């Protein structure tokens, strides 16, 4: 008996688990097309809630704010996260490394209420002492989001850095390339897919955050989750179903496209490398007597 095959029981378990994960979202989407105001009572097909959604000024402003914030956050988080990942995987030991890795991994699990409260108190203290940041708004949201997303990008990038073939870096270094050149010419193209996934992860984390944002945002900087939350607190509303369906659609599309693109790039790189090796071998053969 092959010990490495799934039994019927484990296939069934997998099917049930996926049903658990996807049925709620499926129902959410189906009922966004419900004409009835009572979300769970079906009374006919309608797209009117999507229309209502796009007439909601407050929600649109918040959505725009969240997208802008997520874009800026993801970009900064990838830069900081990549640097931290290089430090974790390539710098060897240095004084204070244990503390450094603690600082990098703690945000992964830290309850959001603690992170949110402590960042707010920091911003208030900074403003008290130096007059910066002036009030709370985009800047404080950006700093807060970058801080927790950077921890996640670090994990994504460093796992790629660890798995890649480090002998290429060593070869470049032996040929006299300075460390920065090795990184930008050799390492960066190889870890590029991880940077993309890290960026996307940070983007969605920022787009999704409610708790930390509630602490560090100010008047005039309301994010989309904050608007959704205040609406959800009052109960279900078909408009939220419509919004949820749009978000699920965008995320699914983005992930699928990114996945396919990265898969193709990877294949292309592999082909090119094989080709280069083959050519090198041929050259070696033709020059040797």
């Amino acid at each position, binding site marked *: 008996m092959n*010990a*490495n*095959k799934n039994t019927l029981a*484990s296939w069934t378990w*997998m099917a049930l*688990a996926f049903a*658990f*994960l996807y049925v*709620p*979202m499926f*129902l*959410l989407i189906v009922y966004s097309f419900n004409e009835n105001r009572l*979300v*769970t009572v079906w009374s006919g097909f309608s797209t009117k809630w999507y229309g209502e959604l796009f007439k909601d000024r407050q929600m649109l402003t918040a959505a725009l704010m969240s997208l802008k914030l997520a874009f800026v956050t993801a970009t900064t988080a990838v830069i*900081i996260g990549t640097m*931290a990942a290089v*430090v974790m*995987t390539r*710098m060897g030991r240095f004084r204070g490394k244990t503390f*450094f*890795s603690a*600082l*990098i*991994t*703690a945000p992964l*699990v*830290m*309850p*959001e*209420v*603690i*992170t949110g*409260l*402590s*960042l707010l*108190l*920091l911003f208030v*203290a900074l403003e008290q002492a130096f007059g910066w940041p002036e009030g709370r708004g985009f800047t404080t949201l950006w700093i807060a989001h*970058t*801080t927790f997303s950077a921890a996640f990008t*670090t994990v994504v990038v*460093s796992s790629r850095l*660890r*798995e890649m073939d*480090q002998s290429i870096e060593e070869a470049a270094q*032996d040929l006299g390339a300075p*460390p920065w050149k090795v990184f930008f010419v050799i390492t960066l193209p190889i870890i590029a897919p991880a940077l993309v996934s890290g960026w996307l992860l940070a983007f969605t984390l920022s*787009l*999704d955050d409610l*708790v930390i944002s509630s*602490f560090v945002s100010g008047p005039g900087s309301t994010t989309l989750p904050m608007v*959704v*939350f205040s609406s*959800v*607190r009052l*109960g279900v509303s078909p408009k*939220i179903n419509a*919004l*949820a369906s749009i978000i699920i659609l965008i*995320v699914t599309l983005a992930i699928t496209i990114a996945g396919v693109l990265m898969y193709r790039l990877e294949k292309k790189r592999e082909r090119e490398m094989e080709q280069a090796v083959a050519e090198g071998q041929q050259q070696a053969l033709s020059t040797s007597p």
Partner: protein
Amino acid sequence: MSKPSVLKRLKPQPRWFVIGAPYLWMFLFFFIPFAIVFVISFMKPAIAMPPVAFEYDLAGNIELLTKNYTRLFDLDDLLYINAYLGSLKMAAVSTILALLIGYPLAYAIARAPGAWRQVFLMLVILPSWTSLLIRIYAWIGLLKNNGFINNFLMWTGLTDSPIQMMQTDFAVYIGIVYAYLPFMVLPIYTNLVKHDPTLLEAAADLGANRFTAFWKITVPLSMNGVIAGCMLVFIPAVGEFVIPEILGGPDQLMIGKVLWQEFFNNRDWPVASAVAITMLLVLILPITIFQRIQNKELEEGK
């Protein structure tokens, strides 16, 4: 071969910058804030901006400074203690449920045919890329008295009147397991796929049945993944605010909710800070365990 390292030592500036920049960021925005929370937890609320002030007398009565903490552990008013115990119970039960669902799932994915593994894994991760708020919101429609589950049960005739599910512990468990399941599956899967299948074959050759082989080989080997997964669920769940707020009711007293209310409703920053510091102390052991494992994984070069 020693040339690169000499070069590196001659030009230390870029290295220091690469280490220094993320270090400084995390130190300033992740470590310093805790120090400030710690200080404020010894203050008292005041009508000022920021609304806190120190309360002390020259005789050096320490009680005035620590009264936020004595309030948390006041045996006459068990609100805070109950909230801590409630959170720990909620988080522990949810973690066990997530493990019971997640381990077999990770195991099944790890044993699926090669090309399918990535697809199944993607299907596990995909929900966590959509909004948490929306995924929790989806459960209101399922769990409420005139929701899908109750409608279905009443249609089949299994019950005559709706079963109360919203605002119960059950709803919060469902919410936490639903939201955190990917975080349980991922580390366990990552661990399981690395296992050497020849170990199981050897066990089978020596006469072990599948169950014995699984229990004696696979489970002990996957312990690191299991612990990492449990910590990734348990620690954030203790401080969870959104899920008990949306799916739970007044009975689901959880410390994240209490902190939120102290801060936003009562505007009592010092007590909120004391709640945060105490929560950190409760979580320091699980966080340390998680970091041990995480760092081992991060540094485990080839």
